[in-house]
């Protein structure tokens, strides 16, 4: 039996906007679920309905087998973190972090030890006796996160908790959240628009789009076997390459091009889109695709090379950058191939994977 269940959960606003269109989702106890999608996909509304901050216009939320759809947030015993931190300005960091523990009458010695431990893990040890106004935005954000995860409620609900942090603080915070969650075993629902965060944190990712769930699965499954063009482009940085065209006897023929890409599997007739991730596009002298470099983005450990091959979109390849690997000058001719084991196909119309 699942710990959290959403059944036909729906939110329609009075003006007719359907923010969430009747979704079903089940999370196991101790699972880390990430709701991923662009602005307006319904992920935050879903989280707020789980928290009890938003009343569904249809469907049910059950936590631990109990219907909580009509319960207040306090009765649900969940801890939240929002992107925009709200700390008590007249309390020190220590008092802010201890607050949820005081609220449930934790013994002082236990409380102090818990506060110290979480503060040390998050690098807040030296800030415990400061007031929020004496902290940078990033530090305030971390304090608000500490306050949420110091306690072990039935669930943690997090809405872009790393949203305001500088990039260099994010990785450390991600690792801390992940190991803390595993250690405490608290079922967690985490909302983000950042696919990298989703990939790195989740046991399972729930990709949302237009108020509906596009795909649910472990990060590797979503990455390797996206259920639709939307998922394939949203997950991955940069997203998957797409080439519209159609299947013809053992080959895929891109629209408007002369290339023939040999294919070993059966494909349905009609308009298809070939998808391949940038790390599975490589240079090879007898590759079926000819093009020229239009942009070379250096990213330290690797480069992202954009190639015009005469298709609807430029092809993007991810290549190593260190050592002898030199940048591709703009205009350089390239002959490209794909790793056949990692080529995917989608129906061009519906966008569904085939």
């Amino acid at each position, binding site marked *: 039996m699942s710990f959290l269940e959403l059944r036909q959960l729906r939110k329609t606003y009075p003006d007719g906007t359907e923010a969430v269109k009747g979704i079903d989702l089940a999370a196991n106890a101790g699972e880390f679920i990430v709701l991923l999608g662009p*602005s307006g996909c319904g992920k935050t509304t879903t989280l707020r309905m789980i928290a009890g901050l938003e009343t569904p216009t249809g469907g049910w939320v059950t936590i631990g087998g109990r219907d909580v759809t009509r319960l207040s947030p306090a009765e649900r015993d969940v801890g939240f973190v929002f992107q925009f931190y709200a700390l008590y300005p007249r309390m020190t960091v220590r008092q802010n972090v201890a607050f949820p523990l005081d609220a449930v009458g934790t013994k002082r010695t236990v409380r102090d030890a818990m506060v110290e431990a979480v503060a040390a893990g998050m690098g807040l040890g030296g800030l415990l006796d400061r007031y929020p106004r004496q902290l940078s935005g990033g530090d305030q954000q971390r304090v608000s996160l500490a306050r949420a995860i110091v306690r072990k409620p039935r669930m943690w609900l997090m809405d872009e908790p790393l949203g305001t942090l500088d990039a260099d603080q994010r*990785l450390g915070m991600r*690792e801390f959240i992940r190991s803390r969650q595993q250690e405490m075993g608290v079922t967690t629902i985490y909302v983000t*628009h950042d696919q990298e965060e989703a*990939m790195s944190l989740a046991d399972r990712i729930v990709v949302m789009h237009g108020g509906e769930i596009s795909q649910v699965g472990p990060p590797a499954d979503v990455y390797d076997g996206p259920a639709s063009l939307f998922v394939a482009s949203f997950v991955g940085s940069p997203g998957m390459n797409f080439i519209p065209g159609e299947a013809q006897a053992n080959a895929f023929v891109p629209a408007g091009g002369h290339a023939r890409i040999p294919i070993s599997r059966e494909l349905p007739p009609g308009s298809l889109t070939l998808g391949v991730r940038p*790390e599975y596009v490589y240079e090879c002298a007898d590759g079926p695709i000819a093009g020229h470099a239009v942009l070379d983005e*250096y990213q*330290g*450990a690797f480069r992202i090379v954009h190639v015009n091959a005469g298709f609807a979109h430029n092809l993007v390849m991810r290549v190593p950058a260190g050592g002898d690997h030199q940048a591709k000058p703009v205009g350089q001719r390239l002959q490209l191939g794909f790793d056949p084991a990692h080529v995917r196909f989608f129906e061009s119309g519906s966008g569904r994977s085939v």
Partner: protein
Amino acid sequence: MHGGAFLKLENVSVAYGRVHALRNVSLEIGGDELVAVLGPTGAGKTTLLRAVAGLETPHAGRIAMGGQDVIRDSPAARDVAIVFQDFSLYPNWTVRANLEFPLKAPGRKLTKDEIGRRVAWAAKLLRIEHLLDRRSVRLSGGEMQRVAIGRAIVRRPRIFLMDEPLTNLDAKLREALRVELVCLRRELKTPMLFVTHDQTEALSMGDRVVVLSEGRILQAGTPREIYDRPASPVVARQIGQPAINLLPVRRSGGEWVTESGVAVAPADGPHYGEMILGVRPEHVAATGGKRAATVRVVENMGPMKILLADWAGTDVHIIAGGSTSLRPGDVIHPKIDANRVLLWPKE
């Protein structure tokens, strides 16, 4: 940089009361160059941009554009265009009106036809032609930022100043607009000073990168120079994701040894005593070393996985292939690529 510099800052300092926002900053930008200024919040990036724009008066130093001293010139006279993080459009105006606005400023004597041509040109370049008659409150974040960039380019300024223009956008949109901006600038052949706290943006967009911290330039160079040969541990940590591993080491026999006694790399160079050893996560292999480590966290990034391992009490980040089956708790034997080790004297 030599002769061809368009913008030249010499020993520019800006102070607010007793707080120094910029200290002795010297910098040159070529006529067709994109320079990315990278630094954390509070490093002085925005102050630098504002000083170039003429919105901030330095208390010392010189700023020249095209060989002319501009320090006494008003922002308008400097003929620069700024794009801010928060878009700053007129919300109730249409996109067209927002784009026309800078062209109708007093002193600009453009004909109606010319204004129309320039708006059409910018709208086409930024693919916002279909939005021209929409009010800007009705736009998405990405559309708004395109319009803000459009408003900067219609003027054909002498230099673009960008203050974290992509920061408020969704991750996916940021990626797309980053590519568009680089291509756009290349087409316009106008220099750009691009301020960001995002190292990916700085590395991938900049012809050169300037690393700023507490108002000082720590290092300036091509992205590859800064990534491969950072001048200090502070610079090294700011560039690269996941961040570089920095291990305090001392030389013992022929090896560099960590505080917890792990021999991590052969020591055959000129350095002695206590040092900081830097090695990027992609230059540490999970196998092949002598001393065991325990995997603590595995982050799946798609094409790769980031491992955080406990190496006899020292945390080390390792990039492994996307298909590795390593899990938390597994024992590995990290090996550092000796050719890619960086060393700095311990402060």
